[in-house]
């Protein structure tokens, strides 16, 4: 029993390291779509490696705070992801983030992980066309301001493949 879990864990670590190497090789700089706001920024709301590994958990945690407790100024929000990572289409609008070759689908398709967020959530940042545009616009501006602050706060640490693998292994063990 003990030895088998040990072997499994070791296999998991090797797999994680392998995946990390693969992902650094395949996506390192190209994951962020060039025409998006994120392209001009140093890093995401947390170091890139951490976000890559844990974004789904962060989102799940904060969605409970938002929906049930009404705490709207959370650090991790899907609307925040979309606002930053959607690529401009050059016609005043945005490409859907889950469209082919766009930010979300780029990785999710590669890893064959189905992406169900956008069955319900908007795939594009807020576009001002409704009666509440002014209100939500203000809200968005506030949020992006906070996001920007967060981003300015910690620069993206330049990680080598080895460091990345180590980080992934640690988060796997937790």
């Amino acid at each position: 029993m003990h030895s088998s879990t040990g072997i499994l864990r070791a296999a998991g670590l090797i797999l994680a390291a392998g995946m990390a190497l693969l992902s650094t090789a395949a996506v390192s700089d190209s994951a962020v779509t060039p025409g998006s706001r994120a392209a001009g920024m140093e890093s995401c709301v947390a170091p890139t490696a951490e976000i890559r590994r844990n974004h789904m958990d962060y989102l799940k945690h904060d969605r409970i705070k938002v929906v049930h407790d009404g705490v709207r100024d959370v650090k991790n929000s899907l609307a925040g992801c979309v606002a930053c990572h959607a690529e401009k289409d050059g016609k005043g609008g945005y490409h859907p983030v889950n469209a082919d070759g766009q930010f979300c689908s780029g990785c999710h398709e590669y890893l064959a992980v189905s992406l169900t967020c956008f069955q319900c959530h908007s795939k594009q940042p807020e576009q001002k066309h409704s009666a509440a545009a002014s209100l939500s616009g203000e809200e968005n501006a506030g949020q992006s301001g906070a996001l920007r602050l967060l981003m300015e706060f910690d620069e993206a640490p330049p990680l080598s493949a080895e460091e990345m693998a180590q980080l992934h292994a640690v988060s796997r063990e937790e």
Partner: protein
Amino acid sequence: MTGKKEQPQDMKRREFIGKTVLAAGAVSVAPGILLTVANAKTEGEGASSNIRWGMLIDSNKCVDNCTACVDACNQENGIDLMQQPKGQGDEMWNAQRPQWIRKVKLRDRQTGEVTNLPMMCQHCEFPPCVDVCPTGASFKRADGIVMVDRHTCIGCRYCMMACPYKARSFIHQNVQEQTVRAPRGKGCVESCNLCVHRVDSGASTTACQDACDKDGHKAILFGDLKDPESQLSKALKEKSSRQIRADLELNTGVRYTSL
């Protein structure tokens, strides 16, 4: 180890177990009540149980054939972005499309008097939809807003059957386009949430009230029922108001005058 020393320890343990069992019992007996208390303890920026959002609707001021509130709601909550599925008849579409607020016309059979009123989720203090929800998706926020957590909704529609106000809608189709503030997808139930995104960003009116005010009718008043100084509380104190289906003792957050 003497018996004397052991006994108090044992008592403590029993006491602890007793308390735990009591607490567990309380959770299963009254989940709604405990939920409210738990939410009240979260950080200051969230929904607070010192507030209870509600509404007063003056049906005398509600004008026949006016749909300003319905249109505003549809736009605010992205309902107007939904499209009739190809091949679906108008009758089916009108029966199934989501409707958070709708106009109801009452006619007194004897006198012929006609009364108009907007009908939506009444944001009950004791919501039947929350009672019947098998997953906890239907819930009441600390500030009294009754809403659906779509992440946990399985689309069983028990809540739709339980609601005495026919306030809930089910999404039958895939949805292509949503707004950021109002997510929507196939297989979940939804209803009026008193424009919760506005409330959370500090607004003091709902989209329907704004639209009604803009048209000069001023039939809808949104506010805090627990604040004695709020416009809503003052209006409620002044005029006699009614709850719809008051016999069910749900203590609705939406009240009506001139009804």
